């Protein structure tokens, strides 16, 4: 996490949550990380102490955590903000984004971006999720246009029965495309599946 030491947590203005506030979709801070409650149940054995059983997803690394709480415990709300930013450039494993309004820049690591890195072309507008000042994820447009930089020629009369072939696009991402796609063509990719969608004419 080098280069990302500017973690700052804002919490004091908001009231703390109690176990009675726990429900699916709630975002809280645990051990300094933001967590999303993905499953929740209230259990109370006959005449006994109530227990609040939760499953939570770490919003930075995606890991799942099971925790059981008793009444009386409290939680710090995780304040998260989504902002439209433009992708600027990549340096090693670090990707830089900028808010066009404030010129504020954030850096994200390749590992945090996951598959999203396959579609990052300079100047692409994305939604950046911020936890304090730390960028913890992005949401992409559903479709992006990327130019094919390398693919084999389609041999006319090829009877091998293959209805697709590999192609490399300008971000370095390799995917299967129909045989008629040629180098230099612009194609549309569905960022939700990573699949070829259609070709952009002209």
């Amino acid at each position, binding site marked *: 996490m080098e280069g990302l030491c500017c973690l700052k947590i804002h919490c004091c203005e908001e009231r703390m949550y109690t176990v009675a506030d726990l429900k699916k979709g709630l975002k809280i801070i645990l051990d300094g990380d933001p967590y999303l409650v993905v499953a929740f149940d209230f259990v109370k054995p*006959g005449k006994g102490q109530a227990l609040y059983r939760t499953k939570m997803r770490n919003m930075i690394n995606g890991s799942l955590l099971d925790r059981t709480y008793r009444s*009386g415990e409290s939680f710090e709300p995780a304040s998260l903000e989504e902002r439209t930013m433009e992708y600027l450039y990549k340096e090693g494993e670090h990707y830089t984004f900028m808010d066009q309004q404030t010129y504020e820049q954030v850096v994200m690591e390749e590992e945090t971006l996951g598959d999203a890195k396959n579609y990052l072309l300079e100047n692409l507008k994305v939604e950046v999720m911020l936890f304090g000042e730390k960028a913890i994820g992005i949401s992409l447009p559903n479709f992006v246009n990327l130019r094919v930089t390398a693919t084999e020629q389609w041999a006319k009369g090829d009877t091998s029965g293959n209805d697709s072939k590999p192609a490399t696009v300008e971000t370095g991402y390799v995917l299967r495309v129909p045989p008629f796609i040629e180098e230099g063509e612009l194609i549309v990719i569905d960022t939700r599946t990573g699949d070829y969608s259609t070709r952009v004419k002209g």
Partner: protein
Amino acid sequence: METPLLIPANAPEEHINPVAALSSSWQLQTSPEICMKRLLCAGHNKIFQISRCWREGERGTRHLSEFTMLEWYRAGCDYQTLMTDCEELLQYVAATCQPERRTFMRQSVQINPHAPWHRLTVQDAFSEYSQADVWECLRKGIYEEVLTAEVEPALAGFDVPVILMDYPAELAALARTKPGNPLLAERFELYVGGLELANGFSELNDPHEQRRRFEEANRERSTAGQKILPLPEPFLSTLASMPDSAGIALGVDRLVMVTAGVDTIDEIVAFSPEDL
């Protein structure tokens, strides 16, 4: 019997919070227990009631803050008689509501109330299913955690109803202790497919001991930062005239759940609180 739902005081319990009513001076009943025991004192020997009950803050896949309870009492009997009552009641319900398969269903497991039921003590259940000692769990304050994470899931594996019996006395504030063993109470819980359906016990009818336990519950509540609850004084002053009795409360919503074979309580009510 039919008793008032709105009362000045429930039996104070450490982990049950009543819903306040009438500018917080009275409460909705958390169970019909107090009034029904006063009817036992008045000479009504075999009584039952189906009524709504309310418990503040109880909401989950098995809990509604407002729910329906079937409660019955028998004078001259102890908790063993109530276990037999449960067997006959569940066999009747299954045969009547499920004429084809005559069984209950929970998480895709069929539970047959017509086959011999499984009975085990709380101590044996803890040592068998969690390799833990129930007294040790109570001392460490992890009784509920071990019960719900290890014991109850094991009870869900039985294809017949299960009676979990002989609770540590501290977990049975209104029950009589076993003759010759003040550490254990004559209390049992009925489980179907790991779901707790009913709680029954031989009733304590010693007003001094009952007052002591209520005051102890309030001390525990106060330590936990919970509200001190008023004591049901008219109940305490008639308790000495209550015959030796046994009483039980059965969650009707949960009985409907296992009869219909659904896994969440929301599926058997027309409106959940979130729908209102």
